[in-house]
């Protein structure tokens, strides 16, 4: 019912009291694509979404939808469906009338309005709740109705600003899959803002990681996960170990003298200062001999299938290592451990980053 529309944000700048919230943001979303914007609090995700929805103005830059410049078009003429983080249903209207709100403004006849509202409530799994008022529904149900309301106007683009963040973990997972299903079904171009990396990786065609008002990387989830473009992305996506060192043929020499194997590429010639980034899951505890690093276990925290160890190196740095939980007993607090680095998993980054 909706064919996707291409969205382009070109060099967006927006400052509040001199502090930039958007600082040259460029983003292109393909027709029908589901893109998540991920980033720490205050990096400008909401601002970007509001600019696209027409709720915020820009100091500089362009918003193009379907090749058309809509930078100066007011929000109510943009035909964009928005779902907000805060509950936003009209409290004096039933679920059905909420969904029909946009249709009524478009002078759809009463009969058609009720039929479409009914269909959309079915689509979000709330066909039986049509006559309920917002205060009679749970948070998850309210957000479903908000989604149905946004979809009812057959928007060109769907904008979701952390619609799940007020919900509990189980409902979040369920609802995010449902959002993805509906989005795929309708092939509607969607921009989804979140600061939960797992959420973004799980449901997106591509993930855009933002920092300080600009895009650091925009790639498929697996690429963002395996090949973070910058140390910032790496850190944000869950890489918590970082070692400063110097490149020497096929390894990196750490100040303490130990060598970490790594895939050295042309960007980092021998002798250059770099940082080695390693996920906790890509470090192994060796039991059969010396590894590249040794240290003592400081703490253990049980995370379910894995247990995360904090290991203190002689240099004073603390590294985090995930071991299968059934083997965690072999490395109690205070025990000396030898660590090995998986060379294919270690990533190199400029030392400055």
């Amino acid at each position, binding site marked *: 019912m909706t064919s996707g529309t291409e969205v382009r944000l070109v060099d967006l700048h927006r400052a509040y009291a001199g502090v930039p919230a958007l600082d040259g943001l460029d983003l292109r979303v393909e027709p029908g694509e589901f893109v998540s914007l991920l980033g720490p609090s205050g990096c400008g995700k909401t601002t970007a979404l509001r600019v696209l929805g027409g709720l915020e103005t820009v100091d500089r830059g362009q918003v193009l939808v379907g090749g058309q410049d809509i930078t100066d078009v007011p929000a*109510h003429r943009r035909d964009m469906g928005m779902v907000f983080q805060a509950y936003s249903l009209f409290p004096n209207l039933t679920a059905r009338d909420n969904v029909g709100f946009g249709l009524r403004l478009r002078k759809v006849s009463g009969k058609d309005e009720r039929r479409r509202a009914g269909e959309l409530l079915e689509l979000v799994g709330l066909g039986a709740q049509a006559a309920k008022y917002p205060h009679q529904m749970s*948070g998850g149900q309210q957000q479903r109705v908000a989604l149905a309301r946004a979809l009812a106007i057959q928007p060109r683009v769907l904008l979701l600003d952390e619609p799940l963040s007020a919900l509990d973990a189980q409902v979040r997972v369920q609802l995010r899959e449902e959002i993805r299903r509906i989005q795929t079904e309708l092939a509607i171009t969607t921009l989804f803002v979140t600061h939960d990396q797992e959420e973004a990786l799980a449901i997106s065609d591509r993930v855009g990681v933002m920092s300080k008002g600009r895009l650091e990387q925009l790639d498929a989830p697996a690429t963002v996960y395996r090949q973070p473009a910058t140390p910032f992305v790496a850190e944000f996506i869950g890489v918590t170990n970082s070692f400063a060192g110097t490149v020497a043929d096929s390894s990196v020499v750490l100040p303490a003298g130990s060598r970490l194997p790594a895939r050295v590429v042309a960007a980092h010639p021998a002798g250059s200062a770099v940082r080695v980034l390693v996920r906790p899951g890509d470090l192994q505890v060796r039991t059969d001999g010396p590894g590249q690093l040794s240290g003592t276990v400081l703490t253990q925290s049980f995370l379910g299938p894995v247990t995360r160890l904090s290991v203190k190196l002689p240099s004073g740095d603390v590294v985090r290592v995930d071991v299968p939980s059934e083997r965690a007993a072999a490395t109690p607090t205070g025990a000396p451990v030898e660590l090995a680095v998986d060379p294919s998993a270690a990533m190199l980054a400029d030392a400055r980053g």
Partner: protein
Amino acid sequence: MSVRLFRYGILLVLGTFFLLPLFAMLEFSTRGGLEGGRDLSAWRAIGDDPQLVDAILTSLQLAVLTSVLMLVLLLPTMVWVHLRVPVLRRLVEFLCLLPLVIPAIVLVVGIAPLYSWVTYFLGDSSLTLTFVYVVLVLPYAFRALESGLSAMDLRTLSEAARSLGAGWGTVLLRVVLPGVRGAVLSAALLTVALVLGEFTLASLLNFPNLQVAVNLIGKRDAALSIAVSLAALLLAFGLLLALSIVGGRRRTSREVEPLAPTPAPATDGVRA
């Protein structure tokens, strides 16, 4: 036990304090002639005095006009300030509360020259009092509307409506107004009560409204003027009672919303 006695004692004292004058008014206005006994002639005479009837109609029209003008001016302004220029909120509040601290006589001295222009353009109808009365009710109306507006998530709801295709007019009529219905009603009722009881400004500006007429009549027919005053008072009381009932209903309806979430704070709190 003694606490309860104390409470009833206080109620009794306050009740007497408020009701005794009213009873006295009722007693006086229904007093029979020289032969004594009860007699409703003063109350019946209310409808017979054309001057008085005119004054009553004037005051009722003033009440309606003032309520409407107050809402038309104040509600959009306050919504606009809430959404667009929240930094001005304190200033607007200060301006709206000013009439409370400026004595009526000062207000008249300031306004009288303006009124020569008003009468020049609009004629010398008593209804032009509407303009002063709007100023006079600002503090009360502002408080009522402010509490209503802060109780709703104005920003999110209006943005949701706009993204669905509503212009500002539609947002005001379809989203804001239903959301602050109770507050609008309070503001309007307070306005009506205040306008019906206003004497000073009307008298000083020489417009015959209800209270001015009551005062005039009092000089010739005390029973009649007391009867009218009591009727006006009872009407105002009735309105205030209605208001407190509406307010009470609003509060209970909020209490039966166990699922109603508090709006998520997050960044939008920074903006608000």
